[in-house]
């Protein structure tokens, strides 16, 4: 049995220790944003942040993240609120700038891959506040275990959304 921290909350896990984190999050902890795309770490639909770094939950045994901080889309608003020291009241009404940008830019088509896309965008923007086109494309193509794949072809909208999110973060959020 492992104890993991998910979106700031300690969770006791009953699943066997070799269970991939993806199934633990979705089936045991009801954290539903990471999706099963390939089970091979080839697409990025299952991505989550572990201590700020993107990993593929489909092939990561839950035991390997014991004691670490897992962040999913559900936890992005609180992550941003903490980084900006927002009051609880403000935090409750605040989305992460990446989420604001994804809505403003109307980025998702079917949207099934966008969980991983937003995770990758968050990882990128926490390290590189104002990435250029080449840095954005490299982040989504070569920085992880595989490129982040989108069947609907939303890549251009993602590039635009990352830039929009970057601008929002620079000025301190959507408000």
């Amino acid at each position, binding site marked *: 049995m492992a104890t993991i921290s998910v979106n700031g909350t300690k969770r006791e896990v009953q699943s066997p220790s070799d269970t991939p984190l993806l199934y633990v999050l*979705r*089936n045991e902890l009801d954290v539903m944003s990471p999706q099963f795309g390939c089970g091979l770490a080839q*697409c990025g639909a299952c991505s989550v942040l572990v201590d700020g770094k993107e990993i593929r939950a489909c092939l990561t045994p839950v035991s390997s993240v014991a004691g670490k901080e897992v962040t999913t889309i559900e936890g992005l608003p609180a992550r941003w609120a903490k980084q900006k020291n927002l009051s609880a009241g403000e935090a409750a009404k605040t989305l992460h700038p990446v989420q604001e940008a994804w809505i403003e830019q109307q980025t998702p088509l079917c949207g099934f891959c966008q969980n991983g896309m937003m995770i990758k965008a968050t990882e990128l923007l926490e390290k590189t506040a104002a990435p250029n086109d080449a840095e954005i494309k490299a982040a989504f193509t070569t920085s992880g275990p595989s490129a982040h794949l989108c069947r609907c072809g939303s890549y251009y909208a993602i590039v635009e959304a990352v830039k929009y999110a970057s601008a929002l973060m620079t000025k301190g959020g959507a408000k």
Partner: protein
Amino acid sequence: MKKAADLNMDIYGAELSRRGFLKTGGTLAVGFSMIGAGVAKAAVAKNTLDASLPQSFVEIHADNTVTIRTGKCDFGQSSVYTAYRQIVADELDMPFEAIQTVVYGDTDRTPDGGGTFDLLGRGVPNLRKVAAYTRQAILELASPALGVGKDRLLTKDGTVSGGGKSVTYGELLKGQDLKLSIPVTGRLTDMFGLVVNGNPPLKQAANYNVVGKSFKNNVIPSKVKAEEMWVTNVKLPGMLHARMVHPKTLGSKLISAGTVDKVKFPNTKVVVKGNLVGVVAPTEWEAIQAARQVEAGTKWSDWKGLPGHENLFRYLRQDADWKSATVSRSPKSAGNTAAALAAAPKKLSATYEMPYMKHAPIGPTMALADVQADGTVMVHTHNQNPQALRGQLALMLGISEEKVVVRTYSGPGHYGRSNGGNAGAEDEAVLLSKELGRPVRVQWMRGEDFQWSTQSAAGYSDVKIGLDANGKISAYEVDHYMPAMQDDRPIGAVLAGLPTMPAPSDKGERLNNTINGNSDLWVYDGILNLEERAHGTWQVGQRESPIAVGLRDHSMRTPGQFQQNFPREVALSEAASMAGADPIQFRIDHAKEERLKHILDRLRSESGWETRPAPRAKTASAATLRGQGVSVMLRTGSYWACACQIAITPASGEIKVEKLTMVVDPGIVINPLQLKRQVEGGSMMGISQALYEEVTFDESSVTTRDWRTYPILKMAEIPEIKVVMVNRPEVGTYGQGSEAANALAAPAIAAAFFDATGKTPRRLPLRPAFVKELLKA
């Protein structure tokens, strides 16, 4: 307020009646009555479409809000959330925001069915007519209420006014329970569903207030905030997880199913039905591991009956039966191509080949079924034609359609795969749930989705072009060859040996025959001698497979037309070169339709096009070769033109599309923002299809199994993209943005390759090995 005393009115063939009075609220619900007794029986089965049930198309509530319901689904193009709301709002003279709820794709709470294609109905989707009938009913109700003749009433922003008085729609309906029955025809559970009939007065495009504006897609926030109920997120009490063990090949029969180690997997069950093997466990991880163990111990017969992808086109040309299916001749075929070709001083004769491609959703198919004790079959899925699925499941189980309910959720877009009713896992989930008496969630793994799903049919085309002494095309002749592209049999039912619709055959009906149609609408009306023929055959391996499977096909985004447009457009570019003409001007010179000429002209000015013949003058031993290419298409009332500028690195064989410009004239542009995103996405899929996508297979199986063996476009490979929308209200109808865009890139890239190198790629995909081979030739 005065109320209409007796309500039983005829409104352009629709019937308005009062079901009663209400103490609170009030509604006008728009359901339907069937035309023709024969179809009525079939269609009314489950949805006894009294509009008191929540299956009405449109409901206006006392608070002036509206709910719309449609059998068409959303697979990421947003039309049901944006275009449909805009069309209905305009036709009702209500603000966009009044339409607060969109219900789609649930067989027990949406009225019409039909596959999710042609969403805009060539200008008149069902909901547009429904809304037009509804507005007339509002006027009929308002006239006595305001004491003003109907012809002196105006509607605006959900309010009727006239004679100095006004009333909101909601106020008119207050306390009333009204029903408007509109005429429909069709069959609810087939590919096309119900179609709204009659001719209520429609709003003229010049009067649109809501159509034409960039409204946002209201489902995006829930997806971005992790609040969306994806199909993958649906959980039911007592739900079990299943993984399938599918046959070893596309023609294998089960000899014996493997077993599970009861110590390691104490709660796992193996279910066997004919050649279908399912492994079911309380947890997903146990199901996955146990299925691996069962798979290792399961014995299948061997089978070899496919030609192998390297021999596909030789097989299709030499061995396939093209005689048993009627040859289709396009309606525009005219003149005498044989004589004109014989007389032509210059001729092109070429064959173009299109590989099998996969719909390749980012997540493999998944469905959750709950076969309940009373025999009700509930299925939760992501599907583009839930009513047809309902019919298929009833057929498989030998039960009434009334017993089957399909609920549709957001899911990974699969671009046409389920337009005939099944995405893959639904029937398997139903069979396992029925067997175990518990809800069962079937999730295919990545490899299974490549192996056991349908695919976009391969095909080849022989093109002959004759050029006259002036360099104009005097004759165009094409023979398109493609196996049946529509196999709607649920695969689990096939493997289990249960009833399904017949496999495609020479005896099949409209949707399961082997006839190939002419799908690429002809646009070069300046060419006087035209002969377009389409030849069909059986699916490859279907008759050879002891389980009647082989390579099953299904329509995929721009179906058939994708396969036929590539040959035509690449051949046109080749002919332009033979004529020494610029490829855009050459197309304009052979067109008559002004809309086509206009978009080509816009393409020339918007894309940075260099007006000159191809190929360009060769640069000696350049490390990078550059070229430009063009393509055009007419699909469902929309004209499309695309230019690609590409760079080729001969040393590596890599192609980079540097810029893609797409000009689209859909008639009326409903929502510029959403159309732009649709076109961008479609264009990226098109580049992906052109450069990378091909289903490989050996003599037994599909060998494409993951994203390494079926590569698709990655972000680093996207070009600069420019989308130009030509809004033409005078056309009066709206075309589509969700199809066609994916088909334009391939012929434009191939033409650009020719421009850069003088060598024409006549097949796809343009992967590095093929590029190097072409450059060597």
